[in-house]
């Protein structure tokens, strides 16, 4: 080991403060004076994009069309076709990589936008934090409870800003609904009923060799080995329990994210979880087409239902994006919030409501990307920070675990452990494939 250092030499590299600072009056807020490597208020943020398929190409195009927010300088993808297409979108102005680790080594990248399949989210996020990058990671945050905890720890250890892509919280409707509910307009909410259409049932395509343009070993990454099948990769990862986890983890990370936000429950978790469902009658996909999950929360006491397909409430008929959403039942009334993602909507009564002067104030996001980039500068926590992302993903994951194990589970949210179920506790984590780990 190196020789013992005095504690006074802790910051010896920074003891003599660097260079000339601009002499300005004291009323200019800190952070405006840009320092090397980090954005000041007027600097454009440089982004690196990992995964530029479906949602990844959406983010790329968003950044490209909002040059005042950020600038894409690098892209990484394991699919040569995705990479080529993304390079064309960026008109050759971004460096292209097959290996995301090379992108993370670029000092000019301030933040990474991760839009890879769910099973990569934790490893990418942790490694990005370790490389000093702030992170915008698509939802759900993770596939296991242990992954989520590792992501939270990495963000905290390095003081990184991490925003999870459950953009429903940043929609105006979520703010209206938050004001309405948190100021007691329906009374104490005791039930939240989520509805969502069923999981798809796939065909039974044969396994095959992966195409030459796809690095399948890299696509699998930390996911345990399975033979290549065209119906199980790219967007279709969603319908396998180990990678996507089905609608409950995919859209559930939107609908239940808004639910936890409106219920102010990011710091808690359900006490009991029960699930019913049956596997598809045919095909490769494992997620149950129909599913019912009951989450029982304690202190305060309330219950959340996740129902596939569930029943769309009549109030949702006139709302946008109403194929999924949630209805909130209080002592004195109800409120419906449809969608939960970029198309979140709510009832007129919430939109018309104005909180009183001393009422509960709900944070209003300027927009999900905007919120992230603002927080990169101020180092304040964004609206869907990793702690919230972990809490939401945990709810989704717990629902799937109750289904897979076929029994009622009791959860200690503070310790992040099941009570009295050793096998369930073994499923809180899973070893990564090959060298990929959290």
């Amino acid at each position, binding site marked *: 080991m190196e020789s013992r250092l005095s504690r006074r030499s*802790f*910051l010896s590299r920074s003891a003599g403060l660097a260079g000339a600072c601009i002499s300005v009056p004291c009323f200019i807020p*800190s952070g405006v004076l840009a320092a090397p490597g*980090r954005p000041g208020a007027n600097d454009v943020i440089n982004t690196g994009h990992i995964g530029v398929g479906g949602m990844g190409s959406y983010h790329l195009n968003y950044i490209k069309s909002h040059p005042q927010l950020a600038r894409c300088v690098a892209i990484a993808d394991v699919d040569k076709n995705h990479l080529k297409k993304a390079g064309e979108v960026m008109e050759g102005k971004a460096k292209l990589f097959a290996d995301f680790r090379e992108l993370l080594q670029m000092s000019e990248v301030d933040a990474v936008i991760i839009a890879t399949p769910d099973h990569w989210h934790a490893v990418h996020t942790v490694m990005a934090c370790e490389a000093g990058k702030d992170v915008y990671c698509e939802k759900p945050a993770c596939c296991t409870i242990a992954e989520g905890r590792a992501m939270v720890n990495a963000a905290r250890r390095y*003081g990184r800003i991490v925003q999870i892509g459950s953009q429903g919280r940043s929609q105006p409707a979520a703010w209206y609904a938050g004001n309405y509910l948190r100021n007691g307009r329906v009374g104490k909410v005791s039930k939240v009923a989520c509805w969502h259409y069923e999981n798809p049932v796939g065909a039974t395509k044969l396994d095959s060799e992966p195409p030459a343009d796809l690095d399948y070993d890299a696509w699998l990454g930390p996911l345990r080995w399975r033979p290549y099948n065209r119906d199980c990769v790219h967007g279709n990862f969603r319908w396998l329990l180990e990678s996507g986890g089905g609608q409950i983890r995919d859209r559930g990370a939107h609908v239940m994210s808004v639910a936890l936000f409106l219920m102010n429950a990011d710091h808690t978790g359900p006490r009991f979880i029960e699930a019913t469902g*049956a*596997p598809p009658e045919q095909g490769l996909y494992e997620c149950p087409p129909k599913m019912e999950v009951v989450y029982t929360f304690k202190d305060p006491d309330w219950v959340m239902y996740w129902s596939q397909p569930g029943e769309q409430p009549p109030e949702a008929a006139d709302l946008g994006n109403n194929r999924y959403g949630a209805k909130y039942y209080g002592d004195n009334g109800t409120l419906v919030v449809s969608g939960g993602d970029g198309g979140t909507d709510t009832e007129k009564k919430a939109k018309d409501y104005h909180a009183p002067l001393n009422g509960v104030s709900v944070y209003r996001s300027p927009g999900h990307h905007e919120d992230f980039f603002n927080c990169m500068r101020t180092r304040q926590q964004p609206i869907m920070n990793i702690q919230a992302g972990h809490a939401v993903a945990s709810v989704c994951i717990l629902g799937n675990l109750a289904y897979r194990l076929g029994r009622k589970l009791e959860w200690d949210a503070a310790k992040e452990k099941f009570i009295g179920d050793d*096998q369930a506790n073994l499923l809180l984590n899973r*070893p990564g494939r090959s060298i990929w780990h959290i």
Partner: protein
Amino acid sequence: MRKNSRRWVRLLWVGAAGIGLGAVAAQAATEAELNDFLGKIKSDQGSVRVEAILKAGPMGAAAVVPLGKVASGDNRAAAIAAQTALKHLAAYAGRPGAAAEMKSVAHYLAFLLDKEYSKVTRCLAMELLSWTGDDAVVPQVSALLADPDADVRDEARRSLQAIPGQASLKALIDGLGKAEGRQKLAIIIALGQRAAPEAADALVALTGSSDTEVALEALDALARIGIPKRDDVTLPSWDSLNEAQRGRLANSLLRWADRRAAKGEVDDALEAYAAVARNAQSEHLLCAALIGATKAAPDQAAEHVVRALGHEANTVRLTAAKLLEQLPPDDAKASLLLEAYKGAKPASRDLILRVLKTWNDKQLAP
């Protein structure tokens, strides 16, 4: 049902009694029920297959091997159903209060590791053993660390990493000596993930490896274990590493420092945080060192955090300010801040005032 399958079922009954699992076998399905179940798994009607899957659990250990055969067969729909049924069966066997049943299921899952089963079935069996297995199945799983197929070898490593107990840990440590390339790295990582002090000696030996990847992964694994300081750990010189490798070493030191701090070894932790702060060329590593040191020893770290308010990097300054705001205010820290204010640049002065205001508000709060 085919002749061979009936023979298998009879053998299973004999085997179960022979190894003292008669009590468990007696609770499982009858031969007729099992045959009916397997017939439904192979049905060409999806609804019938699903009905059987949902009843797989109570079929018990006797169903494992026959299901493994169907899972490895050419009938694709039946194979998928059998794989799903195995998952349900393993989950059912793991319910609280059914330890003997889970042991029995694991025992038969280990049969599915044999080469006569398909690669998919063998890998599935290893996955299921990772949440049903114990010491008893480790010999069969660890034998696959030497399988000719790299995916099978890695699944064996994953399974051993997850199976609780000393036997799996020993198998990983033993496997380390024979492994090469990616498998070697994966086993090193697995030992770190297990955070097992028993692996320390084997890992310490690897810190001196001429393969930098091996050495760095071994250091990271030791950091996750959080071993006390040892003279035989080889730390590479910072100058010998490229930037990415320096980052990895710094990350490992930070991780080790966090572990030592969690064990109450504050001096060790502060020394490591200091090493990172001195050698790190990236602001995020300095932020991490400050965050860790403040958590481990807030009073001792306060002086350094105050000095960080004057750092050239915006992120470091803001991180320092946030750390100070979270600390309980006292006269000593307030004096440090006021002293720092005198020589501070405007950006830093603003942060100092912000911290003081936060402390003031805390003290005034009811």
